[in-house]
């Protein structure tokens, strides 16, 4: 049975004291097996919310709309108890901010064991063997020693690798990595890249990589989704989206990278500040027309399975 993740008319709304805030809207995509899909976009674009919504790891004031099929299981219809069987076992997460994701008062070994025994009580010995193997593979020379330590005794790079070990404990079918290189220096970033590459080569090729690091997404992914203000503006193969971006926003994003000369995307144009209801990129789009101001563009299909949400490609 195929275990692809298919989301249809998927959205997330937060109900706040100031009214509803729509964080992700109208997402239609398939995360295919055997493929790393990179989710790129600015902070606040909704990429982490989309990833966390698949795992239903959202605050209590969040409402999920639409459908998220995992194989033939509708994840949005599952109870919390059933969802617990999916998380970690089937779809695992490498969370943002490793230090905050590890418990500072429990030894590393206990946390790693717990990740397995919570799903399969009595597998303590197996868990120990598993984490020792994984730790050696991910570059820990003395797993026995490190497993008796606490997270605060490890360096940032070691903690980052440790949460990858944690995610892999139950041999998940899918892996979601959330901003794995945020705030890391060049040397640590390369280490993280190597760990993720190792995972895709030996553990699972089914991965969703959430990142603002376009270079990392290019190296690891086969497919790219570009998010902006909660909507996917462009999706397609890495070569199509990153080398020949179609949507004006993707073009701007690629052009703003240091190696492409750091040309900034325009700021909201004068007189357009208060416009809502049209295209989400209308405020900053250099190619916007009158239609973009009033009408909300739908995704247009191009060659090679690429989809672009822009009237230029209708």
């Amino acid at each position, binding site marked *: 049975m195929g275990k692809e993740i298919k989301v249809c008319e998927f959205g997330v709304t937060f109900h706040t004291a100031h009214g509803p805030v729509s964080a992700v809207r109208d997402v239609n995509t398939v995360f295919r097996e055997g493929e790393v899909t990179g989710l790129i976009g*600015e902070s606040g674009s909704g990429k982490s919310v989309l990833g966390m919504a698949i795992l239903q790891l959202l605050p209590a004031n969040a409402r999920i709309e639409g459908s998220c099929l995992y194989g033939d299981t509708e994840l949005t219809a599952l109870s919390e108890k059933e969802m617990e069987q999916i998380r970690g076992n089937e779809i695992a997460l490498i969370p943002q901010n490793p230090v905050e994701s590890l418990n500072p008062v429990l030894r590393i070994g206990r946390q790693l064991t717990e990740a397995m025994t919570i799903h399969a009580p009595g597998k303590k010995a197996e868990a120990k063997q598993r984490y020792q193997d994984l730790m050696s593979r991910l570059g820990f020379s003395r797993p026995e020693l490190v497993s008796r330590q606490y997270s605060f005794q490890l360096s940032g790079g070691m903690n980052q690798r440790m949460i990858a070990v944690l995610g892999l404990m139950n041999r998940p079918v899918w892996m979601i990595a959330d901003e794995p290189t*945020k705030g890391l*220096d*060049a*040397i640590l970033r390369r280490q993280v890249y190597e760990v993720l590459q190792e995972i895709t080569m030996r553990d699972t090729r089914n991965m969703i990589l959430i990142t603002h690091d376009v*270079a990392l997404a290019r190296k690891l992914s086969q497919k790219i989704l570009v998010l902006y203000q909660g909507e996917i503006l462009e999706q397609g193969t890495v070569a199509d989206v990153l080398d020949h971006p179609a949507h004006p926003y993707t073009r701007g994003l690629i052009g703003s990278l*240091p190696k492409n000369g750091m040309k900034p995307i325009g700021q909201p144009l004068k007189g357009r500040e208060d416009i809502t209801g049209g295209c989400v990129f209308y405020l900053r789009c250099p190619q916007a027309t009158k239609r973009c101001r009033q009408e909300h563009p739908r995704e247009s299909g191009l060659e090679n399975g690429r989809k672009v949400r822009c009237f230029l490609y209708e």
Partner: protein
Amino acid sequence: MNNDGMLSVRHLSKSYTRGVVRRQRVDAVKDVSFSIPAGTAMGIAGNSGCGKSTIARMIMGLIPPDDGAVFLDGRQISGLKAGEMKTVRRQIQIIFQHPESSLDPRRKIIESVLEAMEIHGVKQGRAQREARVEELFEMLGLHTRLFQRYPHQISGGEAQRIVIARALTLEPKVLILDEPTSMLDASIQAHILTLLKTLQEALGLTYLLISHDLEVLCWFCDRIGIMTGGALIETGTRTEILEKPEQPFTKKLVESFFAF
């Protein structure tokens, strides 16, 4: 090493002790000297924890150096009394990595920006001061309706530009930029760094940019210094660092960065 740059540091050192039972001495910064000519930008790169930010804090007088001295336009500014340091602070400003912690969460943006001008006695009266802030907001592409907002109501990119605007109200000669864009996205980073470049040309500013992003440093800076373990091990132009790195650590850093 001479002191004739706009900003110079000579033999700057700082060590800390850590541990309770077994006290260990950690050299955060070891004998660092450099000089930045007026109107140019110098970059410092290195791994996390190499002492980059400690240098920035010592230059600003936020922590006292154990040894060595800091010179601004030929005048020694390290070891000054608090009152004397106040006049110096107007000339040298720092932008931190997390703009949201540089703004008071309980005050409106405009109040936070005006406070710096009031403390330093820049311009007379609120109207004149507000007019100056409006000019700077315009220059940085910020809308004046942000004046009445609180820090939690604005984006990271806006907050960082507001912090830059606040620093510029004091008409400083030197800006220390400590990882100013490392928590921001590529498009916002490009916007802020391009603005800072334009401001440098318009106002003749001198910059010290601390970053772990070599591509950013190469694009922005005239000279780049590489730090590891508290020591400045190599300085050079963009070409020297990228194409002819002398130290093994510099080579490793360059290789790691361009492995992508």
